[in-house]
């Protein structure tokens, strides 16, 4: 338009002026747009960091002679145990997660469609429930071992029993088989959108399918694998229920003991922060190691690969292998819960309060999921359009909430939340002469805050991985055509990362629903969720009464899994039509 003002001039000159003017305006609006995005991202990060900072304040207090004791008797073993646990779980979730994802994307066989979503099912089972179920199933006095003894001709568990499940090995196996879906989910999304051309080229260059997996697909999927594995590992590291049940003395168990049994909250905060710094360093090293690599493929003509059809024995083998993690991670605990819940139902019926607990659980989890997704999108997008040190740091900081054990995080949150609550309450008393109670704690908003602060890592991480599949050339093209930063986001990134968004939503929702420590500490009066109900029963040893609530948690957790599977399938259909 501006070019028109230029009087009679050669065509070329006119063109050049138009272009440079456009570039100038686009440059300007880019800066402004970018600055808005990054300011919002900084605000979000501050909100997430508030509880961590309040932990730092707590840790500042005197703890007497805690550290000599810890160093002498606790930390060496706790560190070693945590490390072994993380390595074991890390290897297991990577193997099962990526293997499963490759199986259902690179091959086609009868049952693949079911396996496609069934592999996600263990997500619906909280680790503490799985641990409890297997402890009971495999108890030396339980049915499995009694049966084995009868077959082998032994009479007493003193003569013969299986290796103790309450051990490091048991804990690694259990967490591995329950947590692998984090890797499966992120990696599968990656494989589904991975450019077929790359894989086909490697095939024509003589690689076998297995080698394509190891040498091309896997390295290409590294950002997704890293996101998945770090989510799984942080779950494993921060887990208190399963480790405690299975008698593994991790750092988190020490934090807990220091706080609860020795009433030393500052000491607990110190251990937690030390652990957090370790996690942050590890994550920074991983980032640094792949700083120069790029994972996006050129936008044009990117097709997804077509799966190879398997027949006969091979198909059966594929299906059988794929079902193993589903059976161990889901079918086992779920059928245990069903049989327990049925027995309980026959024995004592079901309490009416469970309906309100279901409503509370779904409502609060859904709200938190919505907020976490929106904020995660903002963080991921702002770091994409401002690829600088600042946004990198913001992106890393915003996930800190996930690297702190939930219990500790909840304590950290109490400070900032009640500060606002008390301020509002006291102002109300001064202004209106009456108290309105605690606004954030009393309304349940504190729970949403806690979930978001804790699980933002999941949504931001998944979105970032999703965005990394979109070639920057698309952004550049759109910007050159005059789109604003927000416009590019709306018209390109959002539609193109729908499946990543759905995956993130599922993970966050299910995690909110399973979350226990923050829910317990920060909920309003008279407000029970399925998880707190379950805990209330389990804490007094009446596990059987908890089985119905546990089963409902699992069932509700399955619904989004199925929803997500459908999103994935549409994506695949679109992909094969060549529209991606």
């Amino acid at each position, binding site marked *: 338009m501006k070019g028109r003002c230029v009087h009679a001039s050669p065509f070329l000159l006119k063109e050049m002026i138009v272009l440079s003017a456009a570039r100038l305006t686009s440059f300007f609006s880019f800066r402004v747009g970018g600055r808005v995005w990054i300011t919002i991202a900084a605000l979000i990060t501050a909100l997430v960091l508030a509880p961590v900072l309040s932990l730092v304040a707590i840790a500042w207090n005197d703890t007497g002679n805690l550290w000599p*004791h810890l160093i*002498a*008797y*606790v930390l060496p*073993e706790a560190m070693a145990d945590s490390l072994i646990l993380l390595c074991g779980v890390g290897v297991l979730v990577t193997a099962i997660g990526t293997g499963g994802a490759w199986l259902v994307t690179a091959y086609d066989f009868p049952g693949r469609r079911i396996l496609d979503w069934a592999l996600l099912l263990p997500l619906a089972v909280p680790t503490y429930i799985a641990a409890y179920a297997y*402890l009971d199933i495999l108890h*030396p*006095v339980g049915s499995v071992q009694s049966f084995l003894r009868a077959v082998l001709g032994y009479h*007493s*568990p*003193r003569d013969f029993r299986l290796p*103790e499940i*309450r*051990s490091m090995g048991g804990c690694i196996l259990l967490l591995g088989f329950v947590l692998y879906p984090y890797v499966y989910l992120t990696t599968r999304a990656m494989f589904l959108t991975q450019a077929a051309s790359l894989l086909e080229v490697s095939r024509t260059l003589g690689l076998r399918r297995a080698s394509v997996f190891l040498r091309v697909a896997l390295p290409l999927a590294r950002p997704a694998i890293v996101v998945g594995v770090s989510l799984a590992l942080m779950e494993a590291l921060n887990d208190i229920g399963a480790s*405690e*049940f299975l*008698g593994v*003395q991790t750092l988190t168990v020490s934090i807990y*003991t220091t*706080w*609860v*049994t*020795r*009433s*030393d*909250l500052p000491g607990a905060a110190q251990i937690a922060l030390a652990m957090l710094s370790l996690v942050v360093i590890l994550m920074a090293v991983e980032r640094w190691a792949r700083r120069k690599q790029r994972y996006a493929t050129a936008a044009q003509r990117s097709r997804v690969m077509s799966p190879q059809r398997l027949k006969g024995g091979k198909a059966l083998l594929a299906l059988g292998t794929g079902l193993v993690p589903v059976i161990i991670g889901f079918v086992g605990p779920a059928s245990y819960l069903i049989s327990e819940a049925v*027995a*309980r139902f026959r*024995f004592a019926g079901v309490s009416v309060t469970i309906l309100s607990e279901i409503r509370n659980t779904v409502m609060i989890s859904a709200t938190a999921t919505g907020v976490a997704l929106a904020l995660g999108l903002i963080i991921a997008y702002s770091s994409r359009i401002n690829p600088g040190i600042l946004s990198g740091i913001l992106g890393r900081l915003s996930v800190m909430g996930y690297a702190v054990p939930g*219990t500790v995080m*909840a*304590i950290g949150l*109490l*400070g900032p939340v*009640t500060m606002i*609550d*008390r301020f509002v*309450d*006291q102002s109300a008393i001064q202004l209106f002469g009456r108290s309105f*109670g*605690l606004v954030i*704690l009393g309304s349940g908003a504190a729970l949403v805050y806690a979930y978001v602060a804790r699980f933002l890592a999941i949504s931001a991480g998944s979105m970032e991985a999703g965005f990394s599949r979109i070639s920057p050339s698309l952004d550049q093209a759109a910007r050159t055509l005059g789109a604003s930063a927000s416009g590019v986001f709306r018209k390109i990134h959002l539609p193109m990362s729908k499946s990543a968004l759905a995956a993130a939503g599922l993970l966050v929702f299910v995690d909110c629903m399973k979350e226990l420590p923050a829910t*317990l*500490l920060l*909920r*309003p*009066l*008279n*407000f*029970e969720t399925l998880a*707190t109900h379950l*805990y*209330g*029963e389990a*804490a*007094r*040893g*009446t596990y*059987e*009464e908890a089985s119905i609530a546990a089963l409902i948690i699992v069932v509700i957790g399955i619904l989004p899994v199925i929803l997500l599977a459908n999103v994935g399938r549409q994506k695949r259909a679109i992909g094969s039509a060549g529209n991606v």
Partner: protein
Amino acid sequence: MNRLSAFRSILIGGVLAIGTSGVAMAAELNLYTTREPGLIQPLLDSYTKSSGVKVNTIFLKDGLAERVKAEGSSSPADVLMTVDFGKLIELKEEGLTQPVDSAVLKAVIPEGLRDPAGDWFALSLRGRVLYAAKDLDLKSFNYEDLSDPKWKGKVCIRSGQHPYNTALIASYIAHHGEAEAEKWLTGLKANLARKAGGGDRDVARDIMGGLCDIGVANSYYVGLMRSGSGGPDQEKWVSSIKVLLPAFENGGTQVNVSGAAIAKHAPNKAEAVKLLEYLVSDDAQSLYAKANFEYPVKVGVAADPLIAEFGTLKPDNIPLTKSAVFRKKASELADKVGFDK
């Protein structure tokens, strides 16, 4: 006539308004508890029924003190309810409670079972007792015997870091000193049939399964399992055990409490005191005995027959208010001997 009736209706309306607003203010009470809802709800329901006061509850576990402290003067908490002497003492030390001067509470609750200044009150008792295989020839037992090598590979117990065990170890320290306690704990650890862990009911289950011969657990679980409220499986477990009331060599059975305190900033203090007074009434105390199988704190209210058959409870001569100072040491000892490893 007309004026009179108008006047009267205003008067009635005013009285009603004052009356109802008074009721609205007093008709609710906020309870923060670390006791599981299943255990206290029957008591609260019965209170609401008799008094018309609605009790709002929140079940918190380990963060009760932290939450009340953070809420500060805006806290809606009226009553704080928890188990374990140590925790009650801590609530007072943290400045979260306030003294109560109630003739009823003083008259009913024996001296060692309430704070001298009236900052907390015990409401029920439980013993840390011995579960033993039914056919075992065992008539009496001392806690000291747990480290006797003759029980090697025959003892089951939960985590050494669980408050119930920390309190037991603390009592041992109070009786014998730290060095002896460490020896004892090392010996007990060496006697374990399985890794320390699980819950108190698991002790009964493992004895039934032949995994161990004896174990230490709380008294009320026996009642809960025997009464059938835990389901048919647990009735089977508990049928394989008998219960002994162990004692320290120079003392009695280790006894802990559940109790309550009035929150420092309680908005409904008068109502809160009434709830505590109700909880030591004959009705409530027999509910504690019958529904939860705890020992009533009130003299004259009988324990449930399922519990009474263990024999007469003779609480230790060093009260837990004294031994509670050793809790931290006890927890450190459990780390030191690697009790849970």
